[in-house]
């Protein structure tokens, strides 16, 4: 018993011993990855169309939705890569706003698209958003880590949201489709207005 108590006390002492506080992961060289992961979550520019895209994927059924889980992250990766090659492409933010409106309208009308169109839409959204997120990188940022973080968040968002939407749609009651379509009309409304604003003023949100 004494030996056990001794071991326990020693273990507690060891656990309580002062050590380095690893709170700031930037020092572990993975900070840029986490920066990339968090960057799309700091505003609505990314998550709003991503959620809508995932709901649109759910409307296409699980077989087609699976393709988007590959196409969209690859698009994000390509967009990040495109920024590294061509960092000053104009009208990307206007294209982003237009995509919010287009995806929202597609959800509002519960549009069923051919598979190539679904995949192409996922890639285009991915490229535009990958590019927009990459614009936040500086010279000191590890580009690969940052873009990898953005891709990871994009993959998680699309996968989780489309899975939740598919499960939601499997339930009984026609109101479920209507609820998602109403949500799509909200997204489209936001997209139309922000597109109008950017078109009129040329500001980048």
């Amino acid at each position: 018993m004494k030996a056990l108590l001794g071991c326990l006390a020693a273990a507690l002492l060891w656990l309580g011993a002062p050590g380095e506080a690893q709170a700031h992961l930037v020092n572990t060289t993975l900070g840029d990855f986490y920066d990339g992961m968090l960057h799309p979550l700091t505003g609505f520019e990314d998550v709003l169309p991503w959620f809508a895209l995932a709901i649109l994927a759910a409307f296409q059924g699980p077989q087609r939705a699976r393709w988007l889980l590959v196409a969209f992250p690859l698009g994000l990766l390509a967009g990040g890569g495109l920024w590294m090659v061509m960092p000053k492409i104009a009208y990307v933010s206007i294209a982003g706003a237009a995509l919010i409106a287009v995806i929202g309208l597609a959800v509002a009308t519960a549009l069923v698209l051919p598979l190539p169109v679904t995949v192409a839409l996922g890639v285009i959204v991915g490229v535009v958003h990958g590019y927009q997120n990459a614009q936040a990188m500086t010279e000191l940022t590890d580009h690969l880590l940052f873009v990898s973080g953005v891709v990871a968040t994009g993959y998680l968002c699309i996968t989780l949201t489309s899975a939740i939407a598919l499960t939601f749609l499997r339930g009984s009651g026609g109101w479920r489709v209507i609820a998602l379509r109403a949500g799509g009309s909200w997204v489209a409304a936001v997209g139309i207005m922000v597109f109008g604003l950017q078109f009129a003023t040329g500001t980048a949100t």
Partner: protein
Amino acid sequence: MRNATPRASLPLAAMLTLVPLAPALAHTGTGVVVGLQSGFLHPISGLDHLVAMVAVGLWGAQLGAPAIWTLPITFPLVMALGGVLGVVGIQLPLAEQVVALSGIALGLLVALRIRPPLWIAMLVVGVFAVFHGYGHGRELPQAADPLAYGVGFVTATGLLHLCGILIGVLVRWPLGEQAVRACGAAVGCVGLYFLLVAVGAIQ
């Protein structure tokens, strides 16, 4: 100095515990949060907008399927077009008056239980939506974060429609039907008040 007795110190301690230790929230007035907050509060803080939004839901519920969902889906989409007019600075004549008129018209439609064909109902709601969107859209360029502002006010508008639909579900019962029509009459009265204010009849 004399020490405080326990009897005296107890009320003092009680008073001190009531003093709120509020956090000092410096620099909260920027970006996404403020944009979202101001957008969300915009349709709620204006009673003329608020009652008209609820009336759209009430009317949709009163008309039944498919109007119960087509009207609340039509409204934000057309409202966005009105919002764009406001954003680009096009002057819509009599905007305040038409917003007030929308309360009167939608309230009367609910109170009198008028059941037009679906396309006419959508047209009526759509026309009023342009003017409501115009009012919101004029504020959009000044917002801290225009996208967050848009998300806020569209969400608030949708939730107000939902409130109207939930109240409108009462039409299944005879007494509920009367209550919904009474709500419509109340909306009409609020609209009339704002119309009189807008034309300067009431200061």
